[in-house]
Structures are given as C-alpha cells and as structure tokens.
C-alpha cells in the first residue's frame, strides 16, 4: 500500500492554501493531476543545466537534451509495454493523438460505406475527430450505447461490429461514469470482424498497469498531465506496421529525411509524426512522471484508488438527494465519482465546495452526449489520486451537506 502522508510530501501544491487559512482539498485529478517535486525539478534541471534543441546540435547541451528527451520516450515505452520506442509518438495530449489518428489513418483508409464505431461514453476527444474525418471521407460514424448501470451494452456492440467497421475507438475507462471497460475483450471483438482497435487510455494509464501487448490494441492515446506529468505532452502509441503505412500528418522540420523545393521524403518512426521542435521540457517531465509512478508501483496506485473510491461511494451515499452516476461498486470503476444533487446545480455545488477549499469538476466533463443520454445537463465530479486521503473525502461530504443548507434543502 501507499504511504499517503509520504506521497503528499512530494506534492508542493498540497501545502498551498486554497483561500487564506483554508487548506486545499484537491479532488480534480481526472481533469489534471498535480505534479510531484521530482517532475518539477526534472523540468527545471533541463532549463537550468542543458537547455537546447534536440535532434540537431553537435554540442554538449543538445546531445544531453536529446539523450534525456529520448530516454523519456523509452520510459514511456516500457511503462505501457510497447514493443518498440518507435511506436511511441509524442504529441501534445490524447486529443492530438486522436486527431493524428483520425486525419492520417482515417483520411487515407476510410471511404463511403465504411463505418467507424465509438461508444456513447467517449470524451469529446474521441468523438469530434471521427465526426470530422467521416464527413470528409463519406464514412459513417456509429456508437455503442451504455446501459442504465453505466456499462457498455455488449449486445448492441455485437450487432454494431460488422465487416463494414474499419476501426473501433473506445475508452478504457470513462471520465464521467468511472466505468472500466473490458478493453482486451473489446479489442478482440473488433479484430474478429477485421476492424482496428484504438483505445483512449487517458483515464487508464495514470491509474493502473497498462500493457498494450496484452490488450493487443492497434493504437492508444493518453495525456501526460493526468499522470503527474506536465501539460503539453501526450502519447499516441501505434503498431509499427500501421504507423509506417500511414501518411504524415503535419509537415516541417524533424519529420523529413530529405527536402527539395518540389518534394520531400519522410523520416522514420516515430519522427515522421513529430514535425517541429517538440515540447522538450515537457517530454523530460513526462519521463520523470513515469519514474515517479514506477517508484510508487502501479499496483499500489490502483489499490489506493480502489480503497478511496470504495470509501467515497459509501460516504457520498449518505448525502440526502445525491445520485451517483455509473457503476455502484469500486471494483467496476476507476478513481472518480460523478454525481448530482436534487435541486442543487453542479456549478453551485462546485462554487460552494470551493469556499471550503475543495476542488471538484462541475459541468459536462467534455462528455456532452453522455450527459444528454442520462437526461442531465451537467454533473459534479470528485476524482482521486495517489495523495487523496479519507479525511479529504470526509471534508467533501461535510461541505456537500453545508451546500445543501445554503440552498435551504
């Protein structure tokens, strides 16, 4: 198990008051996680000791920057058990990963009559790029609904997956319902009809061991900033043979082999998809975040989140008028709980919680379609990470009860 107090000492921001004399209770890690000092120092060290461009210079600084930046890629490769570092494309975030995939693979491979399958519990990042590329190519976008329990409708999936399906792109874990999807099984079902399988790992990779070879997924996208790393860097993993066959997405420096004024030939993987100077400090920070999570142990991270989520599900169920979205037990879900309270809008909930120093997300969490399906405009969401304590969950419950009083409920 994690020594939570020891973990908390790694996060400088946890010593900062939310308001004067009101300590911070950060329950919004699913939106963006806080950063441990190890990550902050790794990025500072780059800027203070070896700041230079990568893949270019012959001088010491550039060689060191290149070596540490590329070392981060290898750390990520091992973290998700990708076969090769060439299959780890560094992008801005999971959103950019899906855009790369949709524009490059989708643009080259989709045609009228083809189908792209997603689910109704996707983040906008795994919906909108597919809508755009389907409009451009004439392919049809379909979605798998979810059940009242908040799990994927597997019967509907079996009907929707056909030989017309060219790619099934789905989330490994919902950012609203918390649902953990049976990724390995879903990948196998896609492959059984000859479709590719792409996974949104944004809410999975930060929280548990992820093995892309075990899942056998063809692609997976995730963001650094939800896993103790900085913003501005993320990953698109893809199988080498698929990435090699895909056309480049953005053109520019770094992604070329030879350029004439008429025509260019492109660099090898992963650089073919990495035009321009990358986010170097951020890549180095991501590497440090991987080191940090490995030192904690992903099994420990997962066990801690399961314990906190289980505690939160029980504590929140004591609040009058509160409805929890998604599966009812921690075993079926990741470390977050979205909820509504009768006659108390999520915005007002978040505002009143903030007065007690408690940070939660309120709104549709970039998942408007699923809120519409559930018949609600918005929800409030508390999400947990390695530093979350049961005391913080208790503070949440106390503050929710206070919010109800303010609203005369």
């Amino acid at each position, binding site marked *: 198990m994690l020594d939570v107090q020891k973990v908390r000492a790694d996060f400088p921001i946890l010593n900062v008051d939310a308001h004067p004399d009101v300590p911070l209770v950060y329950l919004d890690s699913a939106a963006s996680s806080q950063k441990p000092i190890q990550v902050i120092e790794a990025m500072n060290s780059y800027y203070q000791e070896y700041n230079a461009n990568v893949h270019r210079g012959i001088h010491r600084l550039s060689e060191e920057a290149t070596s540490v930046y590329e070392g981060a890629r290898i750390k990520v490769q091992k973290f998700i058990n990708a076969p090769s570092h060439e299959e780890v494309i560094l992008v801005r975030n999971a959103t950019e990963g899906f855009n790369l995939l949709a524009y490059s693979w989708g643009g080259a491979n989709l045609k009228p009559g083809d189908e792209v399958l997603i689910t109704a519990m996707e983040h906008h990042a795994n919906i909108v790029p597919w809508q755009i590329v389907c409009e451009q190519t004439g392919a049809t976008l379909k979605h798998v609904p979810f059940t009242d329990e908040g799990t994927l409708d597997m019967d509907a999936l079996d009907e929707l997956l056909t030989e017309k399906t060219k790619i099934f792109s789905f989330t490994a874990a919902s950012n609203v319902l918390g649902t953990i999807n049976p990724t390995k099984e879903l990948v196998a079902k896609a492959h059984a009809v000859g479709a590719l399988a792409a996974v949104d790992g944004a809410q999975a990779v930060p929280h548990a061991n992820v093995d892309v070879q075990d899942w056998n997924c063809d692609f997976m996208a995730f963001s650094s900033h939800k896993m103790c790393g900085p913003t501005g860097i993320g990953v698109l993993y893809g199988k080498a043979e698929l990435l090699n066959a895909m056309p480049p997405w953005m053109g520019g420096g770094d992604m070329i082999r030879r350029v004439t004024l008429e025509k260019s030939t492109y660099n090898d993987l992963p650089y073919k998809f990495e035009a321009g100077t990358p986010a170097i400090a951020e890549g180095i920070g991501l590497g440090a975040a991987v080191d940090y999570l490995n030192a904690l142990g992903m099994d420990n991270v997962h066990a801690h989140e399961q314990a906190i989520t289980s505690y939160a599900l029980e504590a929140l169920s004591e609040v009058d008028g509160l409805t929890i979205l998604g599966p009812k037990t921690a075993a079926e879900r990741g470390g977050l709980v979205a909820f509504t309270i009768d006659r108390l809008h999520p*915005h*007002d909930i978040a505002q*009143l919680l903030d007065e007690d120093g408690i940070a939660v997300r*309120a*709104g549709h969490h970039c998942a408007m379609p699923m809120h519409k399906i559930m018949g609600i*405009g918005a929800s409030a969401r508390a999400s947990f990470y390695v530093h979350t304590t049961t005391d913080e969950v208790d503070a949440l419950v106390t503050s929710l009860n206070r919010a109800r009083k303010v*609203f005369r409920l």
Partner: protein
Amino acid sequence: MSADMYREMILDLYENPLNHGELDPCTFSHEEDNPLCGDVVKIDVLLDDDKKIKEIKWSGDGCAISMASASLMTDHVKGMTIEEVMELNGQDAVDLLGVSNLSMGRVKCATLSIKVLKAGASAVQ
C-alpha cells in the same frame, strides 16, 4: 462569500423564477448554451407596434446564478426597444445580480441570458 453570491434574492429567484415559460406567438425566439458547462437558456420575445418589448419569457436549465440572472434580465428589459437592448452588456447583467465577487467562470453564467437575448434581437434589428 456564499452570503453574497447566494443571497436570499438569488435563491428565491432560483426557486420561483420571474417571466419563466414560453411565448407563442412571439416575434423572435432564440436559444443558446454555455459550451463550457451545458447551461441552456431560451428567450421568447413579443414586440409591440413601436418595436418595444411587450412580453418576454425565458426557459432553460442551469445553475442558480444563470437562472436568477435570466429572471432579472427579462424583467429589466420589458418596455425597451431593440436598440436599447443592443446597448446592454455583460456588466449590466452582473450589476442586476448585485454580486460583486463573481469569478471569471461564473460571469459566463451571469451573462448567458443577455447574450441569448442580444443574439435573438440582432436577427430582427
């Protein structure tokens, strides 16, 4: 903080809104949402022969701030001409609420209904 933002008046309006409902027939009707949070407001307006607002109703779904603001704003513009409506701005909506400490995010809640009204009004201007 909450003593100010969630004043009795705002909570009263949240529970018992003013001018709530729909108008049929109406001169114009417009609906928009706040893409950040999903709050949605629809405003129906009936103009008289002098192009002044004779009747106005709003409907929608959102937080206490956006809903109270819709009540206050629709009350405020009754009798105004379209030109006068187009002169209004976000600060007017905030002033109507009488809340001094709205954060940037919540200002969008307070100004949603004035945005909806002006967007609808600009189409008939």
